[in-house]
């Protein structure tokens, strides 16, 4: 009898469609439940230490004087607070300049990626001119070339654009334009366009819409979800990129955060350095908290990998 009652209650909270490895019958064996629950507790504590720990340490170090961090790095409560450090990241390090550079690079790369990917996918999926299969094959082919192959020749290309002889190095264009050559973007947007109902296109054509009108007023508004996914990926990739912007943006005035931060190390006090690292982490963490469901649903990620 004792077993029956919680059995019914827990069945309500656990619809059979969502059941996992452990069955309800297992769950009601005390030994199993105890060990599973303690396993979960250990996992949660472990994740708190490993996942959150370093970030909390950084947050603490960002308002702790250097001497404190050096003498007792693992002290839970610092001897003194120095909130001025956060102010100094702006007044001394001028972190906002590099932050704005990162933002500009992200915006430009995003525009370039979305423009290339949507127009190409539209041409290849909807307009389908002769030879588009070969073109699509050439795009797919670049996905199998590891990025390391491109590093050196791409650098020489932005150093002196062939045919037109323009030097892109030390301008944002050197980051913006190569970002557009993403086969991954074209492929997932094309696959999305492929699945849009053709009847709507035909109806629009009957109503007299030309290819531009069809693209701008029908296809683009219908593909907001996939454009959103590609946009988030584009911004994250820009935020993470280090080697390429380091190579093509040598002048300080253009460098993004990721390039500037390693050069700061050693040049300034440790406390101010760690405060700068903390400020640089704030924005991505804020983005993550806002778009948490999109990141964690894994739908976009696993879809991309399975494809």
């Amino acid at each position, binding site marked *: 009898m004792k077993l029956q009652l919680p059995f019914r209650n827990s069945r309500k909270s656990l619809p059979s469609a969502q059941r996992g490895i452990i069955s309800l019958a297992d769950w009601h064996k005390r030994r199993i439940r105890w060990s599973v629950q303690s396993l979960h507790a250990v996992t949660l504590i472990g994740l708190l230490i490993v996942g959150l720990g370093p970030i909390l340490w950084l947050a603490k170090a960002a308002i702790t004087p250097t001497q404190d961090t050096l003498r007792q790095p693992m002290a839970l409560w610092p001897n003194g607070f120095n909130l001025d450090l956060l102010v100094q990241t702006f007044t001394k390090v001028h972190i906002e300049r590099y932050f704005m550079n990162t933002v500009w690079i992200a915006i430009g790369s995003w525009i*370039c990626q979305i423009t290339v990917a949507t127009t190409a996918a539209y041409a290849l999926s909807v307009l389908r001119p002769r030879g588009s299969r070969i073109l699509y094959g050439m795009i797919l082919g670049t996905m199998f070339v590891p990025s390391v192959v491109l590093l050196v020749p791409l650098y020489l290309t932005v150093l002196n654009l062939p045919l037109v002889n323009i030097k892109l190095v030390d301008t944002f264009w050197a980051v913006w334009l190569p970002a557009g050559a993403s086969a991954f973007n074209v492929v997932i947007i094309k696959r999305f366009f492929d699945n849009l109902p053709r009847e709507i296109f035909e109806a629009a054509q009957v109503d007299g819409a030309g290819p531009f009108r069809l693209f701008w007023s029908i296809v683009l508004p219908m593909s907001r979800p996939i454009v959103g996914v590609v946009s988030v990926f584009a911004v994250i990739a820009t935020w993470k990129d280090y080697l390429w912007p380091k190579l093509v943006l040598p002048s300080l005035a253009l460098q993004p955060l*990721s390039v500037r931060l390693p050069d700061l190390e050693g040049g300034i006090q440790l406390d101010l350095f760690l405060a700068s690292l903390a400020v640089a982490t704030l924005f991505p963490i804020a983005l993550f908290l806002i778009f948490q469901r999109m990141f964690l649903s894994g739908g976009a990620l696993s879809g991309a990998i399975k494809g």
Partner: protein
Amino acid sequence: MSSRAEPVTAASGVRKRRGLLTWVSRDGLSTFAFLLPLLLIFGTFSWFPIVRSFVMSVQHTNLVSPPTWVGLDNFATVLADPLFGKSIANTIYFALLALIFGYPIPLVLAVIMSETRRFKGLYSALAYLPVVVPPVVAVLLWKVFYKGGPNGAFNSILGNVGIGPIQWLGDAAMAMPAVVVEATWAAFGGTVIIYLAALLSVPPELYDAAEVDGASILQKIRYVTLPHMRGILFITLILQLIATAQIFTEPFLLTEGGPANATTTVLLLIYQYAFGSSLGGHFGEAAAISLMLAAFLGVFTAVYFWLTRSWSTES
């Protein structure tokens, strides 16, 4: 019947025979306009550099003097460089360590996390948090943790139990594992999220059926869960291997390839050949290494999929 069919064939005949003028005025020009960004951007920044890397690998190019053809000299130079073998050994060592540290952890975590009934979102948010930290920030932060003195963050923890101080990044034997631990920390969350999604696709009826046959929890994991995850496990494995073969930011910022070249990976060597201060400007040699690495990865991936083709398709 025949009179009805006539206009159709006539129309299609007209469509076939339309001239250049109608093609341009109808939709040819607009199609071309839509293809233009693709052709320009991919042509300049993808297709052309790929071809160029082949050309560069048989040229002597250093930006100062005009390029000269040198045949396979670049490959010979690189193969004779003792650092080339060392960098390959280092990269394989890195990949193996990353496999040992990094491959089982996300799987075990995902299986445990998928069975939680409360705070599910909290678990995955915590696991994903390191992925959100920009890689450069993560590397620089861990560099502070790895500080060698007795007051380094890790050394002060170990000091409490009487171990150390350890020269994490200064010791040739410790440097690579230290780099791998940092890289694993930065990446495991992403894999956990992929596995969690894959675990949702296991049909619950299979667990019911396994229970009817009297399977224990571990047996259910062994005979139901893991076989269903096989496809995604094979793909994450090859993706991880391809990614570790091209590792750069972590060793570059943590150790700069040192101490005594113990963490010089293949990509670091390419960087040194092309952009380093001492070697520098040897673009042909750098292209030669890149191509060899790409060829190896291509063959490796093909063999991998050929070997695993029978396991990953059946489910």
